[in-house]
Every structure is written in structure tokens, then in C-alpha cells.
């Protein structure tokens, strides 16, 4: 059966990977669509982008969906891989990484910080399904406090990177990231505009995008796999930046925009190497 249902999918995605292998009702497709829509609106071709993913729901379900070149890295290491790739690829090639919250904020956080530090030109989309869902639903490092998961049956009581006023984006800002934003999957066209801005930053950009997981997260925390419940729950706990309420987990919008304010990794390294090669000194 041919699932090529629209111009955007037939232009940018592989028909072999449609329909997605994600669970029924999964919100990942909305995030995926936001990113591809941003690419389309920027007028980019398949050949302009190398698409990297990683382990877990977000990594596996988006791997090899992009019609062009792509890779799926080991768990948490896509940021180190992308830095090596960034050095080797021509600067005009864009690197987009679609990864999960466990990958970026757990096992890969150190590599992520170093990718931000070096301001390597890449757009990292962290698709946050509020924990480790492909292994059945354990809590992660941005899971809202109190959530019941398979590994927090009494409610998630540990301090994490989104509790008590902490914000994982703060860490990345301190590490030197030049564009940081947050959106929930339902932000649609607004999120597309943000992703476009992220991709226009010649440097390290990251968008944190919580999305609904009906199968595991919602079934434990909300006691229901009804997709509408978890979609409403996420929407209820999201608000635009500056309009947060008491129960807001996710303040959405552009969180930090220092686009094109620092030298980019590939250009800086290659310019420096070239200077040393020519003159023998820095």
C-alpha cells in the first residue's frame, strides 16, 4: 500500500517508513511534522540535511524516515557523533537530531553540554515523552514530580532537571548554547516558526518538545490510554512563556536566543587549522 499522503511526505520522507512504527495515538508524529514543516518552509532540499537519531521511542521511530542521509547513534552519543560529523561535513549541510529525553538529558547530558560548549552547528529536537517509554515506562530526568511510572509506583519523588525551579535549558544556556526553546507537541505552527529560527542559527540550537505518550506514561499517571486525556493533560500544563500558571510544567516559546553571537565550531576549527597550516602559529 502506498501511504504517500501529502506533498511534504513524498518530498522529504521515505514511503517505506510510513506508517510510523510508533504506538497508536503517540504524539511523536506531531513533533516530527513540525520539524519537517520547518525544513519545507525554509526551502531546504533533502540533500541539504543529514538527519541523526538515537535510542528510544523518538530515535527509533524517526530513524531513516528522512529521505536523505541519516544515522542512528548509540544511546546518548549522537551529540558527540554529530560533532565529529560537523567537522567533516561542509558547513552548508545541516545536521538535525531527533532524540528522546532520556538520551539527551540522562545518558547523553555530558555530550550534549559539550556540543553546546563548542557551539557546533546542529539542531537538536528533544522529543520528551516524560520518561523511558520504549522500555515500558520508567521516569526520566524531566518527568513531572509526583508522576506515577513503572519505576516510581509511589510517585516520582527524586529531584530532577525540571523540579523546584530548575530547568534543563538553564544548564545548556550556561554551557554556551546559542538557541534554546520549548514547545509542546500541540503548539503546531507556532512551534514551526521556532524550529525555523533554530535552524537559522549557525550554531548549537535545541528545542525541548514534550509530547503525549498514551501507551505507557498516560496509562500509569492518568490511569487511561485514552489519547484525548493525555493530550488535554499536556496542554493544561503548558503555557506561553510569561503567562505561566501555578500548575504549568512547560513554559513555551523561545527561551534563549543568542543566534549567531558566537563563532561556530566547524568554521572556527577549520579557520584556525588553516591559519596554523599557513603560518605555523595561531
Amino acid at each position, binding site marked *: 500500500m502506498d501511504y504517500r499522503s501529502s506533498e511534504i511526505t513524498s518530498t522529504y520522507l521515505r514511503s517505506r517508513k510510513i506508517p510510523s512504527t510508533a504506538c497508536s495515538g503517540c504524539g511523536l508524529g506531531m513533533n516530527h511534522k513540525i520539524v519537517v514543516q520547518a525544513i519545507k518552509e525554509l526551502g531546504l532540499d533533502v*540533500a541539504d540535511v543529514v538527519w541523526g537519531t538515537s535510542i528510544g521511542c523518538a530515535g527509533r521511530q524517526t530513524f531513516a524516515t528522512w529521505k536523505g542521509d541519516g544515522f542512528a547513534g548509540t544511546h546518548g552519543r549522537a551529540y558527540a557523533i554529530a560533532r*565529529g560529523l560537523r*567537522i567533516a561535513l561542509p558547513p552548508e549541510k545541516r545536521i538535525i537530531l531527533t532524540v528522546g529525553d532520556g538520551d539527551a538529558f540522562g545518558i547523553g547530558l555530558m555530550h550534549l553540554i559539550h556540543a553546546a560548549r563548542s557551539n557546533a552547528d546542529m539542531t537538536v529536537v528533544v522529543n520528551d515523552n516524560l520518561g523511558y517509554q520504549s522500555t515500558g515506562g520508567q521516569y526520566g530526568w524531566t518527568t513531572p514530580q509526583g508522576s506515577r511510572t513503572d519505576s516510581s509506583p509511589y510517585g516520582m519523588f527524586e529531584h530532577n532537571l525540571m523540579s523546584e525551579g530548575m530547568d534543563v535549558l538553564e544548564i545548556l544556556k550556561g554551557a554556551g548554547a546559542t538557541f534554546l526553546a520549548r514547545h509542546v507537541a500541540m503548539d503546531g505552527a507556532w512551534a514551526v516558526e521556532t524550529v525555523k529560527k533554530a535552524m537559522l542559527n549557525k550554531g548549537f540550537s535545541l528545542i525541548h518538545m514534550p509530547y503525549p505518550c498514551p501507551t505507557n506514561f498516560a496509562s500509569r499517571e492518568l490511569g487511561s490510554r485514552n489519547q484525548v486525556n493525555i493530550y488535554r493533560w499536556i496542554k493544561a500544563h503548558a503555557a506561553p512563556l510569561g503567562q505561566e500558571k501555578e500548575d504549568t510544567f512547560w513554559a513555551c516559546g523561545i527561551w534563549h536566543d543568542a543566534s549567531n553571537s558566537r563563532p561556530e565550531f566547524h568554521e572556527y576549527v577549520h579557520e584556525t587549522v*588553516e591559519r596554523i597550516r599557513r603560518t605555523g602559529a595561531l
Partner: protein
Amino acid sequence: MKRFLETGNFAITEGAILAGCRFFSGYPITPATELAEAMSLRLPQVGGVYLQAEDECAALHMCIGASLGGYKVMTATSGPGYILYADPLGWALGCETPLVVLNSGRVGPVSGITGAPGQGEFYLMRYPTQGGNFETICLAPNSAQECMAMVVEAFYLSERFRMPVLVLADQLITDGFEDISVPENEGEMKEMGFRVWPRKVCQGPEFYPYTDALDIPPVVLGHNTGAVCSDWTPTVEGYDIEEVDAHHKHAYRLIYKVRNHRDLFNQHYEKKFMDDDPDLVVVSYGSPSRVVNTAVIKARQQGLKVGALRLINIWPFPDEHFNRKTKYLAVELNWDGELVREVQRAAPKDSEVHFLGTCGDLPSTPDLIETFEKLLKNEPITRKGWVLEAW
């Protein structure tokens, strides 16, 4: 040809650059630090990039990324860093990414003694990552000059087999100062037996063919070939698949592309006094083999019928050298015996296989000759309370 009095690390750096290496990422660790330092000095001079990594795991992942982008790449470490390569090495083996990894052995376990040579990673070179279902190629030089040659060779093999190729040295070899000749042009490289293979680009659509064939160009991203690679079992096109049959075919390639083409590298060994069926064959690799060679020459002068077999290609293990039923003695830089187990497996049934271990320091020539004498007289070899037969 230019001559230097320099370290093994210097020789490795020059060899890598001759082979076309233009990217090195590493993490400081004794005794491989000076190699990273030499790369940081030399690579920019030839337009290459040196990147210090946040840890060894990142170092090798950055190398793989750069290799996937078309660069010839290398990293180097010692035992405590080598175990952090387990994660990326599995990925590189599965994705069939060409790169060169050098491990300079020191004394373990864990940090052990940092500035002394050890050979505790003989099996870790064969099984450097989880999951099995692959074959590895490992070369173990015993001098600075040979380090250069084997690093050049490792780059050559890594392109033809499209896989990581491992070089096992030790602290004495990488840190020691020796007389080193560096070829200055292609003619001199040929004269020295250096082979170079250029990076090619797999055009697809079959990026992971189920075959043992050599010379399938590696997957390179950014050429818009539609190449995909992942950490999962691939289909022929590179898509992830969870099927035992597909995995079986992929594993066949990872194992038999090496096993069926060993003739490309199994000439890397050295034999001394092995033509007259010696009564004792002394097996070693790396820095202890230098003392073994001296001891065997002296033993021959004393009339002992001893031969020396020095392995350079240690993995896949060259069983073909062990087809004669005789006495074997494995001399290693560890106390627990690793090479000896492989010798025992490869030697004909009922062959006598013995072990002489030291660690952190080389065995002495008199100690070795005394051991040869005892073994030839069928006397047990013991030293300072260590029961050396109990490996």
C-alpha cells in the same frame, strides 16, 4: 628518508599522517597522552583536526562521526580508556566504519600502575564490545618503527574491510625512544612496504550487503546517496530490522569478511630458529618479544634447541603457526595468563603449553634462558612462590 631519535608515539603520529589520517580525537591518559599531544601539534600542519574529548567514549564517537563524514580517523588510549570504547566500537563494528584504534597497554586492573607496560587486554582486543557476532583485526607491533608500519597497515585494512582495526602496543613501545626512519615520499613508503587505500564512498542502494566480499566502500554521509546506518541490525539498505534471519546474514558478513580474507594480513609475524623443529617454541608479542628474541639467540649459542614465534597479527588468532606437537612457552606481561590460553587451544592435543608471566617490567634474559633449560629438562618452572603452571 628522515631519521629521528624519537618515541613510539611520534612514529605512530607520522605513520597515521602518511596513511591519510586527518582527524584524531582523544582523552589524556598515560601512556597514550604524548600521542594525542603529537597529533595536536602535527595534524593542523597538514590541514587535519585534533579534538580533545570530554571522555574516551566521546572521543571514539567523534572519530566515527568524522569517519562517516569521509575523514580517515584515529584515536588512542590505554586500558582504563579502552573499556570506554566498548560502546562506540560496537557501533563502528556494526556500521562497518573504517577507523584505527591504538591501545597502549599498562598495568591493571583499573588504573593499576600508570607508567609501566602490561598486556592485560589480549582478550579485550578480540572482544572489545558487547553482543558478539563479529570478528576483529588486531596488530601488535614491538618497536617504534614497527608501530609506524602497523598503523599505516591498520588504516589500509580498515578501508578494505571497512571496519575498525585495532593496534595493541604497550607503555615501553609508545613511550620509549628509538631510532625511527620516516619515509618522505610514495616511493620510500613503497620501499618500506607501506600500503595505502583511499577512502571511497558507497553509492548504495545496498549499503549493507550480506556478503563476505572485500572492498565494498564504506557508508559516507553527506553525499546524498540516501545512506543510513544505525546501531540496529540492518537490512541490506540499512533500515533497522528485528529479524533473526537478517541478523544471521549481517553477522555472517561481520565475521567472515575477516575470516575469509586473512591472507591480507596474516603475513605479520616473525619467526626465529623455527626451521629445524625446535624442542621449545617461545611465543610472545609486543615488548616482551624483544627480550625473548635476545634470549632465544643466546640459548641457541648455548646449544638449546629453542625457537621464537612472535605474533604481530594477534587477532584473528593465527592458529596455523601451532600445527606441530611440541613444547610451547607463552611469555606475557601479565600474571594471569591470556595468550597462553589461546596457544593451548590452537596447539595440537597433548602439546605441552607453559606460561611465564611478568607485569610492569620485562622478563630478564637470564630468567628466560633458565626457564628454557628447565622446560627442556622437563623440570617444573616456579619462581618466588608463584606457581606459574597454575594459570
